[in-house]
């Protein structure tokens, strides 16, 4: 096939869509707003229900994508306009200045070593620090540095310039400007992913207030060998590993009152995985999962949960806790809940609470929807043209949707939908004589 396609979003769905299209001979422009592709999957430690190491299985796909002769990976870039109709779209991409000559940068990291400015590390959920010139994470693709203009001393105070001095490849370019690139594409696949809810407003759980209350994504980074603590779970006040952890489901999901009415679909399983990982790291840890309905519906999920109960001795408690109270002296947390199976308001003291927070459409989804002229549903997910019969088509011809931006789903479902969307995109391109 010939022709070209635009893929928005470089997470696992965008990567899969790009590879599928490119392997059929279609030229793909993969646009990612962050400096590296990989999306949220690159942040995860392991994946359920096989406990596969996430980056181990994703990194080869990221590299394959970047090296593919039919794929142009445009990181640190955003879509700014779309004109025309399928199969003749004209799109404009804003390629933000990263102040690095991409052709010259070898990714050696000399600059990072010498950069004096430390800033919170977004990749590690701000649990540690990175420099103002940085690679988002060790396995970043492409392996090209980016300067954080807001924080770099050269830009804020016209001082320093260390990176430019140490870069032997002469790749630093403080004068670099944003670039607009206009492309013609036959079809578009939107895979803009999701945001992870930060449960600040759910005061009853004390997130942001109690140091030992974490969100699940923070937990993923903490338990990950390449994370800020090299895989050590540490709790306040003594920096020891926790003896009891409570995982709380449906934080911001299935909450018709305050947040999202929908079920985020993946939390029951990732909590099970995270509890298993805790047990694998520290044999003596007690792990409790507070759930409403355990949605172990995928292939081998129920068996996974059965194994968690039987082999890992993970305790499942059917309750949505109402309150978490910290003992300020010990930083221990008391979870108050009403057990549906043994009805009674009870409490459990733990060292650490992991809030399994809702996954929500990306904050960019609205804007993408506007630019592309496609509808969003009440929850902010891209609306399918026909929810029953055509779940991968958006409300506009030639534009297809894949992954979590089209509704809650797990990784294999995202990959499946990504392939599905590229099949439909290929139809458009094929029928245009591509």
């Amino acid at each position, binding site marked *: *096939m010939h022709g070209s396609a635009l893929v928005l979003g470089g997470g*696992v769905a965008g990567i899969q869509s790009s590879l*599928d299209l490119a*392997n*059929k*001979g279609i030229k793909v422009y993969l646009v990612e707003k962050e400096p590296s592709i990989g999306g949220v999957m690159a942040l995860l430690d392991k*994946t359920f*229900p*096989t406990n*596969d190491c996430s980056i181990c*299985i*994703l990194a080869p*796909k990221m590299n394959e994508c970047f090296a593919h002769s039919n794929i142009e990976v445009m990181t640190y870039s955003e879509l700014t306009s779309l004109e025309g109709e399928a199969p003749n779209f004209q799109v404009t991409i804003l390629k933000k200045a990263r102040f690095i000559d991409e052709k*010259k940068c*070898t990714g*050696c990291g*000399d600059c990072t070593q010498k950069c004096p400015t430390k800033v919170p590390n977004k990749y590690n959920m701000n649990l540690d620090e990175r420099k103002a010139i940085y690679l988002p994470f060790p396995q970043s693709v492409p392996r090209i540095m980016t300067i954080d203009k807001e924080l770099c001393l050269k830009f804020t105070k016209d001082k320093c310039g260390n990176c430019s001095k140490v870069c*032997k490849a002469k790749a630093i370019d403080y004068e670099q400007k944003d670039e607009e690139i206009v492309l013609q594409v036959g079809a578009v696949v939107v895979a803009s992913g999701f945001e992870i809810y930060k449960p600040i407003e759910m005061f009853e759980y004390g997130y942001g207030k109690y140091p030992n209350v974490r969100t699940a994504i923070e937990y993923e980074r903490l338990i990950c060998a390449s994370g800020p603590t090299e895989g050590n779970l540490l709790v306040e006040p003594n920096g020891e590993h926790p003896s009891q952890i409570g995982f709380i489901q449906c934080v911001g999901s*299935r909450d*018709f009152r305050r947040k999202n*009415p*929908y*079920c985020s679909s993946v939390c029951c399983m990732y909590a099970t995985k995270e509890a298993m990982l805790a047990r694998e790291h520290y044999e003596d840890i007690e792990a409790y999962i507070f759930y409403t*309905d355990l*949605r*172990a*519906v995928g*292939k*081998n999920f*129920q068996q996974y949960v*059965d194994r968690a109960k039987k082999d890992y001795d993970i305790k499942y408690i*059917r309750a949505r806790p109402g309150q978490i109270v910290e003992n300020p002296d010990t930083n221990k947390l008391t979870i108050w809940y009403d057990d*549906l199976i*043994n009805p009674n308001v009870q409490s459990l003291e733990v060292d650490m609470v992991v809030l399994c927070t809702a996954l929500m459409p990306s904050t960019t989804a609205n804007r993408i929807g506007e630019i592309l002229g496609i509808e969003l*549903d009440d*929850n902010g997910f891209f609306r*399918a043209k*026909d*929810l*029953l*019969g055509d*779940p991968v088509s958006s409300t506009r011809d030639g534009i297809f949707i894949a992954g979590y931006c089209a*509704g*809650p789903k797990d*990784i*294999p*479902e995202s*990959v*499946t*939908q*990504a*392939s*599905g969307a*590229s*099949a*439909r995109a*290929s*139809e458009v391109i*094929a*029928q245009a004589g591509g």
Partner: protein
Amino acid sequence: MSTEQEQPRIGVSVCHCGTNIGGFLDVPAVAEYVKTLPYVIYSEHNLYTCADDGLTSIKNAIKEHDLNRIIVASCTPRTHAPLFQYTCESAGLNPYLFEFVNIREQCSWVHMKEKEEATLKAKDLIRMGVARANLLEPQTEKRVDVISKALVIGGGVAGMSASLSLADQGFQIYLIEKEEELGGMVRKYYKLTPSNIDALEFIDNMVNKIKIRENIKIYKSSIVKDVRGYIGNFKVTIEGKSNENLEVGTIILATGAQEFKPNGFYEYGQDERIVTTIELENKMRIKELDGVINVIMIQCVGSREERIPYCSRICCMTAIKNAIYLKKEFDISVNILHNEIRVYGDYYEALYRKAQEIGVHFNKFGENDKPKVLKENGTLNVEIFNEGLGRIEKYPADLIVVSTPMVNISDAESLSKMLKVPLGQDRFFFEAHVKLRPLDFATDGIFLCGAAHAPATIPEVITQGYGAASRAAIPLASGYVQVEAITSHVEEAKCRGCGRCVEVCEYKALELAELENGRRVSRTNEVLCKGCGTCVATCCNGAISMMHYTSEQINAMIDAALSEKVGGGIVG
């Protein structure tokens, strides 16, 4: 072609990587040492070998010194090998005559305070690289032509979606359905959510689309009898009204699933007031619900138990959908007895709420405390223990609907053998990778969608159908499959034909072939081989070799690593 006779002429480029390597070990000394190694004709060191000038320097050296092997000692092959291989190729050198030595990630960066030791280690590593490079052979990445047609097995919603998409991508499709009509399992349903469309109408719409596609040939009442060949070149025999031999490039398996018949559960089969979900769907279609006032649905009948340990994913949603229809269209009261309601995502969670709002009753029973059906004076009652209230509750029923799991079709086993694709412990077809290859089989060229993979909703099944169509279209669109250059190779004279390698190969890339004299030997199908080398390690008499990772090369590296006491041993 072969450089076997040709004396190796090796060029080595050692990279400083700015200060990343150069700052922690003595790069010039390493480059100087390299010159003393056998067959090394040329050695240089660059600030950045991967920068333009470094690459140009390699190209020039190849020409100037007539080099036939190139070694770069710098960072990791995992990111940079393609770049240097491409450079070699552009200078006329086969990219497989390139050898990468990692002296950054695995040397300078991990021994930053031991310059002397790190320098010695770099020398050792390069010496190992040289030893291997001497034995490298050029490899070609072959291509195999692909027949630009696909076979779709199963004419349900999954198979039809896959066929439609493949056809619209421009390929000839053969669609095989064992029943007399297309539509599969969905044919047995009443109405479908979210669009409230009649299932038969939904199927007819799809069938009509299929019918007008000239490039879809449908074989109804037909089954696949035999499959031979491999990706790009499958030969398929089908048996039906007429027996035909088809040649296709790829195959999609969309054989669906069936409802588990709960014989032996409650009084199913004996009392006709106890029916399965699909039987209820039929009752609703033919309006055979006169006199039914109370319907009791029991979830998880047969599933999440020892024999069928899995959760069948769709039963909660199907029950809720049917409860809403029963309530709204037939004005029947419905209680759904469940252990927990497993509706996930956005639409179904909303549907669950809607059902609650219109008065469908949801009653929970304990995980290990399944409902009891009692017959009292001919009247059916269902009894559960309500854990929340701590008491037994009894519900009268005019009709009991048992929600049973989906199980794989009865001929799954024989299909599995015929197509050489595996079944999982749950007896469903087992994909190549649970996370990232949900639609592929480990065997190349065969793909999977629909309930044959696991129970799934209609939109999910359709998405999978499209997805499988994408995967299956890739070889068809390219017209060829690129064969890995790194494959195993069987030396037939040595092969004893024991078949152990065939057993260990996960990709079915090895097969016992019969020679003219009746002797059986194993052969690698290079198209399917992924180059892991497990077969090589398995063969006890060295009949299999692994291209580019030969035993000789590995031995040479071991020997070279230990040949000099440069980097270790007892000093002083």
